[in-house]
């Protein structure tokens, strides 16, 4: 079985990819992609660390289940916001969405 650090490095690479997407992308849907990738890397960490304890526990999987459910709500609300922003502005470039800037 692989050492814990390989799973940790995999989740670290996914986190770095997600942060790159959050910084570099301007399309709102791509930002949603990046957030989903980051949530996935976090759930990998939960499961890996709870599996590699001296006495493995299941709590990490339970927490990951909660995280998956929250990610589903986040995707639903985020996509509704994107559809509404597209309807109002005909564009979902996040640098163009500054109506609330004041």
């Amino acid at each position, binding site marked *: 079985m692989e050492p814990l650090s390989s799973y940790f490095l995999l989740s670290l690479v996914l986190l770095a990819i997600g942060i*790159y997407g959050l910084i570099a*992308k301007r399309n709102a849907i791509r930002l949603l992609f990046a957030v989903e990738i980051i949530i996935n890397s976090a759930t990998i960490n939960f499961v890996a660390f709870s599996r590699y304890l001296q006495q493995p526990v299941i709590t990490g999987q339970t927490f990951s289940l909660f995280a998956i459910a929250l990610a589903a709500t986040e995707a639903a609300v985020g996509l509704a916001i994107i559809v509404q922003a597209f309807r109002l502005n005909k564009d979902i470039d996040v640098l163009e969405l500054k109506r609330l800037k004041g």
Partner: protein
Amino acid sequence: MRRVVHIMPDMVFIAVAVITIGAAILALESRELVYGAVALAVSFLGVAGIFILLDAVFLAMMQVLVYVGSIAVLIIFVVMLVRREKWVSIPAGKERIMGVIASVSLLAFVGFVVLGSGLTETFTSTATPPSFFEIGRQLVTEYGLTLQILGLVLALAVIGALTMAKVEGIRSK
């Protein structure tokens, strides 16, 4: 519970990790947004494979059901609703360089800390994984209240999303 994958776990892990990371990069960098959405679904499947390697079979099933089954399909629908030709070539010069610098520096920093921390040698678990029946027991005992609040949040989010996406006066066209 016995281990799920017996044969050559190293090669399986490397293959699944490469698929996951490559699909995640493709999801952000693909030219067409629709291909990006499909690549994101592939990346979610790769994460489900990682869960199976970690003996979390139930979680892998939920990952496929929720992420690949609902979130990826929802994203593909929205991409098809709001697709425009202009996005095919958005120039991203300075932001892309900043993003690469930020993510690579994070990767190098945390990666060196982890590799230097001795996590590599000490932590190889040979203990038997706990049965996933334990998840159900925890969900109704220790985290019962959390589960109910989560259901409430889910219902409120769906209602909010429906309210937000409702079209005003679609009948009076």
